[in-house]
Protein backbone atom coordinates (compact mmCIF):
# COMPACT_ATOMS: atom_id res chain seq x y z
CA UNK A 1 0.00 0.00 0.00
CA UNK A 2 1.31 3.46 -0.88
CA UNK A 3 2.23 5.83 1.90
CA UNK A 4 0.41 9.15 2.31
CA UNK A 5 2.66 11.95 1.07
CA UNK A 6 0.38 14.87 1.95
CA UNK A 7 -2.61 15.04 4.25
CA UNK A 8 -4.67 18.23 4.45
CA UNK A 9 -7.27 18.48 7.22
CA UNK A 10 -10.01 21.12 7.48
CA UNK A 11 -8.01 23.98 6.02
CA UNK A 12 -9.69 27.35 6.51
CA UNK A 13 -8.46 30.67 5.15
CA UNK A 14 -10.22 34.03 5.30
CA UNK A 15 -9.18 37.27 3.58
CA UNK A 16 -11.06 39.97 5.55
CA UNK A 17 -14.71 39.18 4.75
CA UNK A 18 -14.02 36.61 2.00
CA UNK A 19 -13.69 32.96 3.00
CA UNK A 20 -11.23 31.53 0.49
CA UNK A 21 -11.13 28.00 1.97
CA UNK A 22 -14.03 26.55 3.97
CA UNK A 23 -12.39 23.57 5.63
CA UNK A 24 -10.99 21.52 2.77
CA UNK A 25 -9.50 18.05 3.37
CA UNK A 26 -7.73 15.63 1.05
CA UNK A 27 -4.86 13.16 0.93
CA UNK A 28 -2.25 12.50 -1.74
CA UNK A 29 -0.49 9.16 -1.96
CA UNK A 30 3.22 8.92 -2.59
CA UNK A 31 4.11 9.16 -6.33
CA UNK A 32 0.53 10.15 -7.14
CA UNK A 33 -0.45 13.07 -9.35
CA UNK A 34 -3.42 14.74 -7.70
CA UNK A 35 -5.22 17.63 -9.39
CA UNK A 36 -7.31 20.38 -7.88
CA UNK A 37 -9.72 21.39 -10.59
CA UNK A 38 -11.91 24.43 -10.24
CA UNK A 39 -12.88 27.80 -11.72
CA UNK A 40 -10.91 30.98 -11.02
CA UNK A 41 -11.26 32.06 -7.40
CA UNK A 42 -12.17 28.54 -6.21
CA UNK A 43 -9.27 28.42 -3.72
CA UNK A 44 -6.73 26.37 -5.68
CA UNK A 45 -3.84 28.84 -5.45
CA UNK A 46 -4.58 29.61 -1.79
CA UNK A 47 -4.30 25.88 -1.05
CA UNK A 48 -0.96 25.66 -2.87
CA UNK A 49 0.37 28.79 -1.13
CA UNK A 50 -0.55 27.43 2.30
CA UNK A 51 1.15 24.08 1.60
CA UNK A 52 4.26 25.92 0.32
CA UNK A 53 4.40 27.99 3.53
CA UNK A 54 3.76 31.26 1.68
CA UNK A 55 0.46 31.96 3.43
CA UNK A 56 -0.69 31.05 6.94
CA UNK A 57 -4.06 29.28 7.27
CA UNK A 58 -6.58 30.44 9.86
CA UNK A 59 -7.09 26.85 10.99
CA UNK A 60 -6.53 23.29 9.86
CA UNK A 61 -3.61 20.91 9.75
CA UNK A 62 -1.20 19.73 7.09
CA UNK A 63 0.98 16.63 7.34
CA UNK A 64 3.86 16.06 4.95
CA UNK A 65 5.07 12.46 5.06
CA UNK A 66 3.34 12.15 8.45
CA UNK A 67 5.11 15.19 9.95
CA UNK A 68 3.18 18.31 10.90
CA UNK A 69 4.15 20.85 8.23
CA UNK A 70 4.06 23.91 10.46
CA UNK A 71 5.96 22.28 13.33
CA UNK A 72 8.69 21.28 10.86
CA UNK A 73 8.52 24.24 8.49
CA UNK A 74 12.17 24.46 7.41
CA UNK A 75 12.33 20.67 6.84
CA UNK A 76 8.98 20.74 4.99
CA UNK A 77 10.12 23.55 2.72
CA UNK A 78 13.19 21.53 1.79
CA UNK A 79 10.92 18.63 0.69
CA UNK A 80 8.63 20.79 -1.45
CA UNK A 81 9.20 22.29 -4.88
CA UNK A 82 6.83 24.97 -6.11
CA UNK A 83 6.07 26.09 -9.64
CA UNK A 84 3.95 29.23 -9.27
CA UNK A 85 1.38 30.46 -11.74
CA UNK A 86 3.39 33.58 -12.58
CA UNK A 87 6.94 33.32 -13.92
CA UNK A 88 8.98 34.49 -10.93
CA UNK A 89 12.41 34.09 -12.47
CA UNK A 90 15.09 36.78 -12.50
CA UNK A 91 14.73 38.13 -16.02
CA UNK A 92 18.17 39.78 -16.06
CA UNK A 93 19.98 36.62 -14.95
CA UNK A 94 20.79 33.60 -17.09
CA UNK A 95 19.12 30.19 -16.87
CA UNK A 96 22.18 28.81 -15.08
CA UNK A 97 22.34 31.72 -12.60
CA UNK A 98 18.66 31.28 -11.70
CA UNK A 99 19.24 27.59 -11.03
CA UNK A 100 22.43 28.31 -9.06
CA UNK A 101 20.66 30.72 -6.71
CA UNK A 102 17.85 28.23 -6.15
CA UNK A 103 20.38 25.50 -5.35
CA UNK A 104 22.07 27.74 -2.78
CA UNK A 105 18.72 28.66 -1.23
CA UNK A 106 18.10 24.94 -0.73
CA UNK A 107 21.58 24.52 0.78
CA UNK A 108 23.01 22.24 -1.90
CA UNK A 109 26.77 22.00 -2.28
CA UNK A 110 28.33 23.73 -5.30
CA UNK A 111 29.38 20.40 -6.84
CA UNK A 112 25.84 19.02 -6.48
CA UNK A 113 24.38 22.23 -7.92
CA UNK A 114 26.63 21.88 -10.96
CA UNK A 115 25.58 18.25 -11.43
CA UNK A 116 21.86 18.98 -11.02
CA UNK A 117 22.00 21.93 -13.43
CA UNK A 118 23.55 19.69 -16.06
CA UNK A 119 21.00 16.86 -15.49
CA UNK A 120 17.98 19.14 -15.50
CA UNK A 121 19.04 21.17 -18.54
CA UNK A 122 19.35 17.84 -20.34
CA UNK A 123 15.93 16.69 -19.09
CA UNK A 124 14.25 19.92 -20.20
CA UNK A 125 16.16 20.06 -23.48
CA UNK A 126 17.61 23.43 -22.49
CA UNK A 127 21.36 22.75 -22.66
CA UNK A 128 21.84 25.20 -25.50
CA UNK A 129 20.10 27.97 -23.52
CA UNK A 130 22.18 27.64 -20.35
CA UNK A 131 23.72 31.09 -20.76
CA UNK A 132 20.65 32.83 -22.14
CA UNK A 133 19.04 35.53 -20.04
CA UNK A 134 15.51 34.56 -18.99
CA UNK A 135 14.09 37.62 -20.75
CA UNK A 136 15.42 36.23 -24.06
CA UNK A 137 13.39 32.98 -23.75
CA UNK A 138 9.90 32.24 -25.11
CA UNK A 139 6.97 31.67 -22.74
CA UNK A 140 7.22 27.88 -23.09
CA UNK A 141 10.96 27.84 -22.34
CA UNK A 142 10.47 30.11 -19.32
CA UNK A 143 7.88 27.62 -18.01
CA UNK A 144 10.33 24.78 -18.45
CA UNK A 145 13.02 26.69 -16.54
CA UNK A 146 10.46 27.38 -13.81
CA UNK A 147 9.72 23.66 -13.52
CA UNK A 148 13.34 22.49 -13.49
CA UNK A 149 14.20 25.19 -10.96
CA UNK A 150 11.64 23.60 -8.61
CA UNK A 151 13.29 20.21 -9.22
CA UNK A 152 16.84 21.38 -8.41
CA UNK A 153 16.73 20.10 -4.81
CA UNK A 154 14.91 16.83 -5.74
CA UNK A 155 11.67 17.65 -3.90
CA UNK A 156 9.49 14.77 -2.75
CA UNK A 157 6.37 16.87 -3.35
CA UNK A 158 6.03 19.12 -6.38
CA UNK A 159 3.36 21.82 -6.37
CA UNK A 160 2.32 22.93 -9.85
CA UNK A 161 0.04 25.95 -9.88
CA UNK A 162 -1.53 26.24 -13.34
CA UNK A 163 1.71 25.19 -15.05
CA UNK A 164 0.51 25.65 -18.63
CA UNK A 165 -1.57 28.79 -18.32
CA UNK A 166 -1.24 30.99 -21.39
CA UNK A 167 0.72 28.48 -23.46
CA UNK A 168 -0.20 27.29 -26.95
CA UNK A 169 -1.51 23.69 -27.35
CA UNK A 170 1.76 22.36 -28.80
CA UNK A 171 3.92 23.68 -25.95
CA UNK A 172 1.28 22.64 -23.43
CA UNK A 173 1.52 19.01 -24.62
CA UNK A 174 5.32 19.17 -24.38
CA UNK A 175 5.03 20.36 -20.78
CA UNK A 176 2.52 17.56 -20.04
CA UNK A 177 4.93 14.89 -21.17
CA UNK A 178 7.64 16.61 -19.11
CA UNK A 179 5.39 16.48 -16.02
CA UNK A 180 4.58 12.79 -16.68
CA UNK A 181 8.31 12.15 -16.86
CA UNK A 182 8.84 13.84 -13.47
CA UNK A 183 6.10 11.71 -11.91
CA UNK A 184 7.61 8.57 -13.46
CA UNK A 185 10.83 9.43 -11.63
CA UNK A 186 8.99 9.08 -8.30
CA UNK A 187 7.89 12.63 -7.44
CA UNK A 188 4.48 13.19 -5.85
CA UNK A 189 2.67 16.02 -7.60
CA UNK A 190 -0.15 18.36 -6.63
CA UNK A 191 -1.43 20.17 -9.69
CA UNK A 192 -3.97 22.96 -9.91
CA UNK A 193 -5.57 23.71 -13.22
CA UNK A 194 -8.74 24.90 -14.87
CA UNK A 195 -7.89 23.05 -18.10
CA UNK A 196 -10.05 19.91 -18.03
CA UNK A 197 -8.06 18.02 -20.64
CA UNK A 198 -4.89 18.72 -18.62
CA UNK A 199 -6.36 17.13 -15.49
CA UNK A 200 -7.81 14.24 -17.52
CA UNK A 201 -4.50 13.52 -19.21
CA UNK A 202 -2.20 13.98 -16.21
CA UNK A 203 -4.03 13.24 -12.98
CA UNK A 204 -4.41 9.93 -11.17
CA UNK A 205 -7.12 11.54 -9.05
CA UNK A 206 -8.99 14.81 -9.31
CA UNK A 207 -10.74 16.98 -6.72
CA UNK A 208 -13.45 19.40 -7.88
CA UNK A 209 -13.16 22.59 -5.86
CA UNK A 210 -15.78 25.36 -5.85
CA UNK A 211 -15.88 28.49 -3.68
CA UNK A 212 -13.36 27.09 -1.21
CA UNK A 213 -15.00 23.68 -0.84
CA UNK A 214 -14.04 20.30 -2.29
CA UNK A 215 -17.23 18.82 -3.75
CA UNK A 216 -15.91 15.49 -5.04
CA UNK A 217 -12.72 13.45 -5.33
CA UNK A 218 -12.32 10.61 -7.81
CA UNK A 219 -10.22 9.30 -10.69
CA UNK A 220 -10.92 10.99 -14.04
CA UNK A 221 -12.12 7.62 -15.38
CA UNK A 222 -14.65 7.15 -12.58
CA UNK A 223 -15.92 10.72 -12.87
CA UNK A 224 -16.54 10.03 -16.56
CA UNK A 225 -18.06 6.59 -15.90
CA UNK A 226 -20.66 8.11 -13.58
CA UNK A 227 -22.08 10.00 -16.55
CA UNK A 228 -21.77 7.33 -19.22
CA UNK A 229 -19.60 6.68 -22.25
CA UNK A 230 -21.25 8.78 -24.95
CA UNK A 231 -22.55 12.32 -25.05
CA UNK A 232 -24.96 13.86 -27.53
CA UNK A 233 -24.88 17.65 -27.89
CA UNK A 234 -28.03 19.28 -29.26
CA UNK A 235 -27.72 22.94 -30.21
CA UNK A 236 -31.13 24.37 -29.35
CA UNK A 237 -31.98 27.96 -30.24
CA UNK A 238 -31.21 29.31 -26.77
CA UNK A 239 -28.90 26.71 -25.20
CA UNK A 240 -26.80 23.61 -25.61
CA UNK A 241 -28.46 20.43 -24.34
CA UNK A 242 -26.14 17.52 -23.60
CA UNK A 243 -27.39 13.99 -22.81
CA UNK A 244 -25.24 11.09 -21.64
CA UNK A 245 -25.55 7.39 -22.50
CA UNK A 246 -23.87 4.14 -21.49
CA UNK A 247 -24.48 2.49 -24.88
CA UNK A 248 -23.67 3.88 -28.27
CA UNK A 249 -27.03 2.66 -29.71
CA UNK A 250 -28.99 4.75 -27.21
CA UNK A 251 -26.88 7.76 -28.09
CA UNK A 252 -27.48 7.24 -31.80
CA UNK A 253 -31.26 7.12 -31.18
CA UNK A 254 -31.06 10.52 -29.46
CA UNK A 255 -28.97 11.82 -32.33
CA UNK A 256 -31.59 10.78 -34.89
CA UNK A 257 -34.39 12.26 -32.81
CA UNK A 258 -32.94 15.78 -33.06
CA UNK A 259 -30.93 15.64 -36.27
CA UNK A 260 -33.76 16.82 -38.57
CA UNK A 261 -34.28 20.23 -36.96
CA UNK A 262 -31.10 20.90 -35.00
CA UNK A 263 -27.36 20.76 -35.27
CA UNK A 264 -26.29 17.69 -33.27
CA UNK A 265 -23.06 15.82 -32.48
CA UNK A 266 -22.08 12.52 -30.91
CA UNK A 267 -18.83 12.23 -28.93
CA UNK A 268 -17.10 10.49 -26.01
CA UNK A 269 -17.80 11.79 -22.48
CA UNK A 270 -14.91 13.82 -21.05
CA UNK A 271 -13.89 15.06 -17.62
CA UNK A 272 -15.20 18.46 -18.68
CA UNK A 273 -18.72 16.98 -18.81
CA UNK A 274 -18.38 15.66 -15.27
CA UNK A 275 -17.02 19.00 -14.11
CA UNK A 276 -19.81 20.98 -15.77
CA UNK A 277 -22.40 18.77 -14.06
CA UNK A 278 -20.87 19.76 -10.72
CA UNK A 279 -20.78 23.42 -11.76
CA UNK A 280 -24.52 23.26 -12.56
CA UNK A 281 -25.16 21.73 -9.16
CA UNK A 282 -23.07 24.32 -7.34
CA UNK A 283 -24.03 27.57 -9.05
Amino acid sequence: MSKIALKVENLVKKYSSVVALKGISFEIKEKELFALLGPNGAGKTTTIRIIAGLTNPDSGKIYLFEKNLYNNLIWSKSQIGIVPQHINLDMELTVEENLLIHGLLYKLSLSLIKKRISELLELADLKERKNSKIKELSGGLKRRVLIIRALMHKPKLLLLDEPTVGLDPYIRRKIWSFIKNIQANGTTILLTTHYMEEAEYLADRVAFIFSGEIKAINTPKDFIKQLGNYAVDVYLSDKLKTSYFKEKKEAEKELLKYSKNHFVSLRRVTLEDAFLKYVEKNL
Partner: protein
Amino acid sequence: MKGFFATYLREFLLLKKRFIRVLISFSINPLLYIFAFGIGLGKNITIGGKSYLEFLIPGLISATSMMQAFAINVEINIARFYLKIFEEFQSSPISNLSYALGEVLSGVTRAFLATFIILVISFLAGVKFYLNFYFFLTVFLNAFVFASLGLASAMLIKSHADQALVTNFIITPMMFLGGTFFPTENLPFFIKPVIEALPLTITSHTLRSIALYNSFKYSSLFILLVIAIISFMIALYSIKGAKN
Protein backbone atom coordinates in the same frame (compact mmCIF):
# COMPACT_ATOMS: atom_id res chain seq x y z
CA MET B 1 25.12 30.64 5.48
CA LYS B 2 24.18 29.35 2.02
CA GLY B 3 20.83 31.10 2.29
CA PHE B 4 22.56 34.37 3.08
CA PHE B 5 25.01 33.79 0.24
CA ALA B 6 22.18 33.05 -2.24
CA THR B 7 20.39 36.29 -1.35
CA TYR B 8 23.60 38.31 -1.56
CA LEU B 9 24.74 36.59 -4.76
CA ARG B 10 21.48 37.44 -6.54
CA GLU B 11 21.87 41.15 -5.76
CA PHE B 12 25.58 41.02 -6.57
CA LEU B 13 24.98 39.42 -9.98
CA LEU B 14 22.35 42.03 -10.81
CA LEU B 15 24.74 44.81 -9.76
CA LYS B 16 27.52 43.25 -11.84
CA LYS B 17 25.32 43.06 -14.93
CA ARG B 18 24.42 46.73 -14.61
CA PHE B 19 27.89 47.82 -13.49
CA ILE B 20 28.55 50.54 -16.08
CA ARG B 21 25.03 51.98 -15.71
CA VAL B 22 25.32 51.85 -11.92
CA LEU B 23 28.74 53.47 -11.99
CA ILE B 24 27.44 56.36 -14.08
CA SER B 25 24.30 56.82 -11.98
CA PHE B 26 26.29 56.68 -8.72
CA SER B 27 28.67 59.36 -10.06
CA ILE B 28 26.14 61.90 -11.33
CA ASN B 29 24.77 63.19 -8.00
CA PRO B 30 28.11 63.56 -6.18
CA LEU B 31 29.61 65.26 -9.23
CA LEU B 32 26.71 67.72 -9.40
CA TYR B 33 26.93 68.53 -5.69
CA ILE B 34 30.71 68.92 -5.82
CA PHE B 35 30.53 71.25 -8.81
CA ALA B 36 27.44 73.22 -7.76
CA PHE B 37 28.06 73.57 -4.03
CA GLY B 38 31.74 72.79 -3.61
CA ILE B 39 33.33 74.55 -6.57
CA GLY B 40 30.54 76.92 -7.66
CA LEU B 41 28.85 78.31 -4.54
CA GLY B 42 31.45 77.36 -1.97
CA LYS B 43 34.59 78.63 -3.69
CA ASN B 44 35.08 81.52 -1.28
CA ILE B 45 33.60 79.88 1.83
CA THR B 46 35.66 78.36 4.63
CA ILE B 47 34.27 76.45 7.62
CA GLY B 48 36.47 75.88 10.67
CA GLY B 49 39.54 76.80 8.67
CA LYS B 50 38.80 74.27 5.92
CA SER B 51 37.59 74.94 2.38
CA TYR B 52 33.91 74.27 1.72
CA LEU B 53 34.85 71.42 -0.63
CA GLU B 54 36.78 69.71 2.17
CA PHE B 55 33.82 70.27 4.47
CA LEU B 56 31.33 69.02 1.90
CA ILE B 57 32.89 65.74 0.77
CA PRO B 58 32.66 63.75 4.04
CA GLY B 59 29.02 64.87 4.32
CA LEU B 60 28.44 63.83 0.74
CA ILE B 61 29.91 60.40 1.47
CA SER B 62 27.51 60.05 4.43
CA ALA B 63 24.49 61.13 2.41
CA THR B 64 25.34 59.13 -0.70
CA SER B 65 26.11 55.95 1.23
CA MET B 66 22.77 56.44 3.01
CA MET B 67 20.89 56.93 -0.28
CA GLN B 68 22.51 53.97 -2.03
CA ALA B 69 22.07 51.61 0.93
CA PHE B 70 18.44 52.66 1.33
CA ALA B 71 17.91 52.23 -2.42
CA ILE B 72 17.88 48.44 -2.03
CA ASN B 73 14.21 49.00 -1.25
CA VAL B 74 13.66 49.63 -4.97
CA GLU B 75 15.26 46.30 -5.93
CA ILE B 76 13.32 44.48 -3.22
CA ASN B 77 10.07 46.11 -4.31
CA ILE B 78 10.61 45.05 -7.90
CA ALA B 79 11.44 41.53 -6.70
CA ARG B 80 8.39 41.48 -4.44
CA PHE B 81 5.61 43.19 -6.36
CA TYR B 82 6.67 42.90 -10.00
CA LEU B 83 8.85 39.79 -10.45
CA LYS B 84 7.41 38.00 -7.36
CA ILE B 85 10.88 36.61 -6.63
CA PHE B 86 10.39 37.31 -2.93
CA GLU B 87 8.10 34.23 -2.94
CA GLU B 88 11.02 32.10 -4.10
CA PHE B 89 12.90 33.19 -0.96
CA GLN B 90 9.85 32.73 1.25
CA SER B 91 9.17 29.21 0.05
CA SER B 92 12.79 28.13 0.45
CA PRO B 93 14.19 26.66 3.68
CA ILE B 94 16.20 29.74 4.67
CA SER B 95 15.67 31.82 7.79
CA ASN B 96 14.52 35.43 7.76
CA LEU B 97 17.89 36.26 9.30
CA SER B 98 19.78 34.84 6.29
CA TYR B 99 17.51 36.69 3.88
CA ALA B 100 17.81 39.98 5.77
CA LEU B 101 21.60 39.72 6.09
CA GLY B 102 21.95 39.02 2.36
CA GLU B 103 19.81 42.02 1.38
CA VAL B 104 21.35 44.41 3.92
CA LEU B 105 24.91 43.51 2.97
CA SER B 106 24.07 44.00 -0.70
CA GLY B 107 22.95 47.51 0.32
CA VAL B 108 26.25 47.99 2.13
CA THR B 109 28.10 46.91 -1.04
CA ARG B 110 26.24 49.53 -3.07
CA ALA B 111 27.09 52.15 -0.43
CA PHE B 112 30.80 51.29 -0.53
CA LEU B 113 30.81 51.44 -4.31
CA ALA B 114 29.30 54.94 -4.14
CA THR B 115 31.81 55.94 -1.43
CA PHE B 116 34.77 54.85 -3.56
CA ILE B 117 33.44 56.82 -6.51
CA ILE B 118 33.30 60.00 -4.39
CA LEU B 119 36.78 59.36 -3.00
CA VAL B 120 38.15 59.00 -6.54
CA ILE B 121 36.38 62.20 -7.63
CA SER B 122 37.76 64.00 -4.55
CA PHE B 123 41.26 62.74 -5.26
CA LEU B 124 40.98 64.01 -8.84
CA ALA B 125 39.74 67.37 -7.50
CA GLY B 126 42.88 67.59 -5.38
CA VAL B 127 41.21 67.22 -1.99
CA LYS B 128 43.28 65.35 0.61
CA PHE B 129 41.83 63.43 3.57
CA TYR B 130 42.84 61.20 6.42
CA LEU B 131 41.42 57.78 5.68
CA ASN B 132 41.64 54.97 8.21
CA PHE B 133 39.84 51.84 9.37
CA TYR B 134 37.37 53.86 11.49
CA PHE B 135 36.41 55.98 8.49
CA PHE B 136 35.29 52.85 6.61
CA LEU B 137 33.73 51.34 9.75
CA THR B 138 31.58 54.47 10.06
CA VAL B 139 30.51 54.17 6.41
CA PHE B 140 29.73 50.50 7.03
CA LEU B 141 27.55 51.22 10.08
CA ASN B 142 25.75 54.08 8.32
CA ALA B 143 25.08 51.87 5.29
CA PHE B 144 23.97 48.99 7.53
CA VAL B 145 21.44 51.28 9.29
CA PHE B 146 19.92 52.57 6.07
CA ALA B 147 19.99 49.26 4.19
CA SER B 148 18.09 47.74 7.16
CA LEU B 149 15.59 50.61 7.05
CA GLY B 150 15.32 50.20 3.26
CA LEU B 151 14.53 46.52 3.72
CA ALA B 152 12.02 47.26 6.47
CA SER B 153 10.25 49.89 4.39
CA ALA B 154 10.12 47.54 1.39
CA MET B 155 8.46 44.90 3.57
CA LEU B 156 6.00 47.26 5.24
CA ILE B 157 4.65 49.11 2.22
CA LYS B 158 1.74 47.66 0.29
CA SER B 159 2.59 48.88 -3.21
CA HIS B 160 5.47 50.18 -5.28
CA ALA B 161 3.96 53.68 -5.35
CA ASP B 162 4.10 54.00 -1.55
CA GLN B 163 7.88 53.69 -1.62
CA ALA B 164 8.35 57.16 -3.12
CA LEU B 165 6.49 58.62 -0.12
CA VAL B 166 8.96 57.09 2.32
CA THR B 167 11.90 58.47 0.33
CA ASN B 168 10.35 61.94 -0.07
CA PHE B 169 9.30 62.31 3.56
CA ILE B 170 12.23 60.72 5.38
CA ILE B 171 15.36 60.23 3.29
CA THR B 172 15.43 63.48 1.25
CA PRO B 173 14.87 65.80 4.29
CA MET B 174 17.50 63.86 6.24
CA MET B 175 19.99 64.32 3.41
CA PHE B 176 19.59 68.11 3.49
CA LEU B 177 19.38 68.54 7.27
CA GLY B 178 21.75 65.83 8.47
CA GLY B 179 24.99 67.84 8.39
CA THR B 180 25.75 67.16 4.74
CA PHE B 181 25.82 70.69 3.36
CA PHE B 182 26.11 72.94 6.43
CA PRO B 183 27.20 72.69 10.08
CA THR B 184 24.37 71.74 12.43
CA GLU B 185 25.77 73.94 15.24
CA ASN B 186 23.84 76.97 13.98
CA LEU B 187 20.44 75.27 13.81
CA PRO B 188 17.62 76.65 16.04
CA PHE B 189 17.64 75.21 19.59
CA PHE B 190 14.25 73.44 19.21
CA ILE B 191 15.34 71.33 16.24
CA LYS B 192 19.06 70.91 16.93
CA PRO B 193 18.80 67.93 19.37
CA VAL B 194 16.54 66.04 16.93
CA ILE B 195 18.83 66.65 13.95
CA GLU B 196 21.95 65.73 15.90
CA ALA B 197 20.41 62.45 17.01
CA LEU B 198 19.84 61.34 13.40
CA PRO B 199 22.18 58.55 12.26
CA LEU B 200 23.13 60.55 9.19
CA THR B 201 24.20 63.55 11.30
CA ILE B 202 26.28 61.31 13.57
CA THR B 203 27.89 59.77 10.48
CA SER B 204 28.58 63.15 8.85
CA HIS B 205 30.21 64.51 12.03
CA THR B 206 32.29 61.37 12.56
CA LEU B 207 33.47 61.11 8.95
CA ARG B 208 34.31 64.83 8.90
CA SER B 209 36.28 64.54 12.15
CA ILE B 210 38.29 61.61 10.83
CA ALA B 211 38.79 62.95 7.31
CA LEU B 212 39.75 66.50 8.30
CA TYR B 213 41.26 66.19 11.78
CA ASN B 214 42.12 62.47 12.13
CA SER B 215 40.08 62.23 15.35
CA PHE B 216 36.68 60.90 16.38
CA LYS B 217 34.60 59.89 19.42
CA TYR B 218 34.18 56.18 20.13
CA SER B 219 30.78 57.02 21.61
CA SER B 220 29.56 58.08 18.13
CA LEU B 221 30.50 54.71 16.71
CA PHE B 222 28.80 52.98 19.64
CA ILE B 223 25.58 54.97 19.06
CA LEU B 224 25.68 54.08 15.36
CA LEU B 225 26.19 50.42 16.28
CA VAL B 226 23.15 50.51 18.58
CA ILE B 227 21.03 52.19 15.86
CA ALA B 228 22.26 49.58 13.35
CA ILE B 229 21.19 46.71 15.63
CA ILE B 230 17.76 48.30 16.27
CA SER B 231 17.26 48.96 12.53
CA PHE B 232 18.16 45.38 11.68
CA MET B 233 15.71 44.06 14.29
CA ILE B 234 12.98 46.24 12.74
CA ALA B 235 13.87 44.80 9.31
CA LEU B 236 13.68 41.23 10.64
CA TYR B 237 10.32 41.90 12.27
CA SER B 238 9.01 43.48 9.04
CA ILE B 239 9.87 40.38 6.99
CA LYS B 240 7.55 38.32 9.22
CA GLY B 241 4.78 40.82 8.56
CA ALA B 242 5.26 40.63 4.78
CA LYS B 243 3.75 37.12 4.68
CA ASN B 244 0.20 36.72 3.39
